[in-house]
């Protein structure tokens, strides 16, 4: 097992600050860069900076926002936009559903889970999932809130920056901004590779994703997740049965 990057926190308040501190480095920079890209896109669309801000604050899930902007610009019907965004951001359902059980504990009002769900996106999921099991039960909601809120609040700033610098950055920098996200996730995935089911899921996903995309672009991600994830899960359980006492995910 890899040691956690830092020891568990002394208090819940320290967990809130710790989450904020851990988010404030590379995760915030990568996420900021992608929202800079989104702000530039909205500028291209001839929408206002307020539209850009409203989208970032109300949706806060970049792939869906980008699809919305591209489709609106090309004149797609409203229904098609809504369906596309629903479908693209449906990946948030398994993210939220797999993360919140780590957070839940008795005596916490239900609405707080619905609130903190707004702070769960791919970046905060990958960043917090690997830390939550090391934290005390009563610190986890605070940690996630600190982590997620730091990213959430930095996003509108990046969106506005992107809106106003759109025409002033060279093309190669724009490409680097777009490339940042897959690169960042790739390295985060390689950070801890000690659970067999997780390693298999990453491996199957990385192979199936590009292959299926060429066959059925619209459905490739769903099929990749279901087929690759299910196979990894089944094989991981099989491995765990041989080595009892090891949690396989």
């Amino acid at each position, binding site marked *: 097992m890899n040691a956690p990057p830092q020891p568990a926190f002394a208090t819940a308040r320290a967990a809130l600050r710790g989450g904020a501190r851990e988010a404030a480095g590379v995760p915030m*920079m*990568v996420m900021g860069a992608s929202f800079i890209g989104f702000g530039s896109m909205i500028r*291209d669309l001839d*929408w*206002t900076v307020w539209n850009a801000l*409203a*989208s970032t604050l*109300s949706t*806060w899930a970049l792939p*869906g*926002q980008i699809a919305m902007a591209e489709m*609106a*610009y090309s*004149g797609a019907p*409203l229904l098609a*936009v809504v369906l596309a*965004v*629903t479908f693209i*951001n449906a990946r*948030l359902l398994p*993210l939220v559903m797999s*993360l*919140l*059980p780590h957070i839940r504990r008795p005596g916490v009002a*239900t609405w707080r*889970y619905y609130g903190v*769900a*707004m702070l769960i996106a791919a970046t905060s999921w990958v960043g917090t999932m690997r830390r939550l099991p090391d934290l005390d039960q009563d610190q986890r909601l605070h940690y996630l809130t600190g982590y997620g809120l730091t990213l959430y609040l930095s996003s509108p700033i990046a969106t506005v920056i992107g809106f106003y610098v759109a025409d002033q950055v060279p*093309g*190669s*920098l724009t*490409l680097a901004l*777009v*490339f940042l996200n*897959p*690169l*960042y996730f*790739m*390295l*985060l995935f390689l*950070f801890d590779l000690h659970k067999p*089911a*997780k390693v298999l*899921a*990453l491996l199957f*996903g*990385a192979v199936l*994703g*590009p292959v*299926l995309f*060429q066959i059925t672009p619209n459905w490739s*991600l769903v099929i990749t*997740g279901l087929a*690759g*994830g*299910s196979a*990894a*899960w089944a094989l991981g359980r099989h491995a765990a049965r041989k080595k009892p006492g090891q949690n*396989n*995910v």
Partner: protein
Amino acid sequence: MFEPTATSLYSPTLIITMAALATYASRALGTYFSGKVARQSALIEWVTCVTYALLAGLVARMILLPIGALSATPDWVRLSAAGAGLAVFIVTRKNVGLGVLAGSLAIIALVEWNGF
């Protein structure tokens, strides 16, 4: 990426609101279902595996078969930049920040030198 003459047909506010509601629906449903199952359950382990596979598939697709601006770059540029990021990540004992920085600088350098 955009056709310069096209204009959007709907009010931005309407489309942004609909997109936001469509997005939060997934978060709300995820929250609802997460309250119905125990953390150590096989179902949650399965959902976690599905999520990892889905995100890994998305990342691999974004690097190998990008859409948008990156699609104008040749495969070897993206693969070299990803390789540079990975190499620095390994050499620096899993420093994600330096890996991302190296990969980004690599793609800027390759694009500038080759003029895509």
